[in-house]
């Protein structure tokens, strides 16, 4: 395989920044691509070169294979990293890269096609002896409605090209099926440009457990342990952690072996994720393999010390994995929280606008992966994920306390985020006790509205203060424009360094 010297990052937001950072740390040149909505985005600012690939809507820019390939050619990049989402799981894109002489940083396109097509993947894994969840795809002939009858309600609509919960819908009754199919297909279309869907039976009380795998072109496949991602809203993961509270050492070992079996039988190269559902009795079912970097890959990096993106780049350059399974040692616990531009007090409606101020947490055990900065414009065109906080601790308790500390420090003005929601989540006894499954968030958790006298008093004073200042009343001869200085003695500092 070819030498990698210049990498085009076919993505945006925090993951593009993440990949650019890995490239810089390897001394590789980076090429960013941007839509008209992202000219001043962080990934453009941090890259060595940047090329416009179209207008704001993803379909005309980040999802345009022609425009991305064109940028790669113009920039004379020798390789392309797709990140996650957009074209990451599109086999035609991987193939187009190959045919243009570009090294695609990911598995080869046949593997992507096989695994990207969830129905194909399920057939393949079943053949390889991996247990799967019953679904409409097992009897392809039948129409989807009778398939639904056979599987029974509630059931799940999934996009064949799916991932990240996009195009996924829960259906409780036959009446809901029609409208839900319509919504799911429209979402799938806009997210993947493919509206094919299928049905899966719901595994009651299931937890979402996945394994991070890494493979090279010499048949070596290892895994970096498990991740639990059961905390989901609208089938979108919000909190992920490793290791999972739900696994015994024995169960973890067995699932790990199955993950390796899945990876080896697919002759998997690069980084991927094998997803399972785990029911209350310790039975697990193969869900899918995500043939790409995963949003939550960072938690695995925190406990293993590996840099998954750098390893992707190395194996893409034809080098062998630098690790054998026995080299992988898990230290401590890591939890990720996704910060979304959504208003938890308005049914999680997307929140867009200019970020007028942001302070992101830092310090011991806290890693932030973010695409925002002071002045950044959050637009309606893309995913609402603006930042990820990863907290590491010696124990799960330490990690949770760190995460709460970090969420408490987070300041962002100009847009609404799900931070208050996450704070309550990390404070909930069920989460702290590890007592949850994939239905927890939507069925057994809601934003508290409990009264706190002390805080209400502070809130009352704060609002009164602002109203008071607005009225231009200036106690102590202060200045309403900068209320701060209206109070207390003015320290020598103003005099000296004003």
């Amino acid at each position, binding site marked *: 395989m070819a030498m990698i010297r210049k990498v085009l990052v076919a993505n945006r937001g925090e993951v593009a920044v993440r990949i650019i950072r890995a490239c810089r740390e390897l001394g590789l040149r980076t090429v960013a691509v941007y839509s008209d909505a992202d000219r001043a985005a962080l990934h453009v600012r941090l890259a060595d070169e940047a090329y416009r690939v179209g207008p704001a809507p993803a379909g005309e820019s980040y999802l345009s294979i022609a425009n991305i390939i064109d940028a790669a050619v113009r920039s004379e990049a020798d390789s392309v990293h797709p990140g996650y989402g957009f074209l990451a799981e599109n086999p035609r894109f991987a193939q187009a890269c190959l045919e243009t002489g570009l090294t695609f940083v990911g598995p080869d396109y046949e593997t992507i096609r096989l695994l990207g097509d969830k129905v194909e993947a399920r057939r393949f894994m079943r053949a390889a002896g991996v247990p799967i969840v019953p679904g409409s795809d097992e009897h392809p002939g039948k129409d989807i409605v009778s398939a639904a009858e056979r599987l029974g309600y509630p059931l799940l609509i999934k996009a064949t090209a799916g991932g990240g919960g996009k195009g996924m819908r829960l259906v409780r009754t036959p009446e809901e099926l029609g409208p839900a199919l319509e919504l799911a297909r429209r979402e799938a279309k806009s997210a993947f440009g493919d509206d094919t869907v299928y049905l899966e039976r719901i595994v009651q009380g299931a937890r979402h457990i996945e394994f991070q795998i890494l493979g090279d072109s010499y048949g070596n496949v290892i895994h970096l342990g498990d991740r639990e991602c059961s905390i989901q809203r609208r089938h979108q993961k919000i909190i992920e952690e490793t290791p999972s509270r739900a696994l015994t050492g024995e169960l973890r070992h067995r699932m790990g072996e199955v993950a390796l079996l899945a990876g080896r039988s697919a002759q998997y190269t690069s980084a991927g994720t094998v997803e399972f559902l785990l029911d209350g009795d310790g039975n697990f079912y193969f869900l899918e393999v995500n043939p790409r970097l995963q949003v939550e890959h960072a938690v695995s990096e925190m406990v293993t010390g590996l840099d998954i993106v750098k390893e992707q780049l190395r194996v893409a350059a034809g080098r062998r994995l630098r690790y054998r399974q026995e080299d992988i040692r898990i230290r401590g616990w890591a939890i990720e929280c996704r910060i979304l531009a959504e208003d938890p007090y308005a049914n999680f409606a997307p929140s867009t606008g200019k970020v007028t101020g942001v302070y992101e947490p830092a310090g011991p055990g806290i890693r932030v992966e973010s695409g925002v900065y002071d002045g950044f414009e959050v637009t309606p065109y*893309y995913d609402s994920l603006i930042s990820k906080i990863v907290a590491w601790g010696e124990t799960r308790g330490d990690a949770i306390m760190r995460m709460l500390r970090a969420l408490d420090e987070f*300041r962002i003005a100009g847009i609404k985020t799900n931070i*208050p929601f996450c704070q309550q989540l990390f404070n909930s006894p069920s989460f702290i006790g590890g007592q949850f499954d994939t239905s927890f968030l939507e069925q057994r958790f809601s934003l508290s509205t409990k009264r706190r006298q002390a805080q209400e008093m*502070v809130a*009352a*004073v*704060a609002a009164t*203060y602002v109203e*008071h200042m607005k009225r231009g009343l200036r*106690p102590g001869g202060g200045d309403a424009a900068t209320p701060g200085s209206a109070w207390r003695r003015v320290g020598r500092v103003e005099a000296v360094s004003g």
Partner: protein
Amino acid sequence: MKYVVSVEGDQHQIEIEGSTVLMDGRPLELDVRQIGDLPLYSMLLDNESTEVSVEEDGRFRYSVMLAGELYSVSVRPAGTQPAADRSLHLASDNVVRAPMPGLVTAAPVQVGDRVAAGQVLVVLESMKMENPLPAPAEGVVHQVHVAVGDSVEKNQPVVTLKYDQENVAARDDGGE
């Protein structure tokens, strides 16, 4: 300066005099600094340090975010009437506005339809998600301002409703 302040429905008398605050008659030392030019304030209230974000949402009305909880507070100078406030509040509520920019992917209601509270009036696609905009209360569709395929800006009116008075009252209490 005296104010009548209601938080989540409870009423308080608050007086600000210099760096002293009288909270229902109880004196507290207040020291506030605004952080940059953000709606963010570092407050020391009898040395308790808190950082609050205070955003105005309507005359005399504020949303205060504090330690991960949202409080809606109304503040009016002692003596003035809350009436003006309410009427303003009411008027604005006839119009259902887009909570975010996006693309209209469905508009299932017609002028003249009677809609129940929570019934979907319009579906907006934004950030790759379908966002149904529900009716805030039972009422009748007076106007539909958008059609499927339109892209709307934040706060752009999408539907105008007509409410019966008792619903409004009920909703306002709920909204406090």
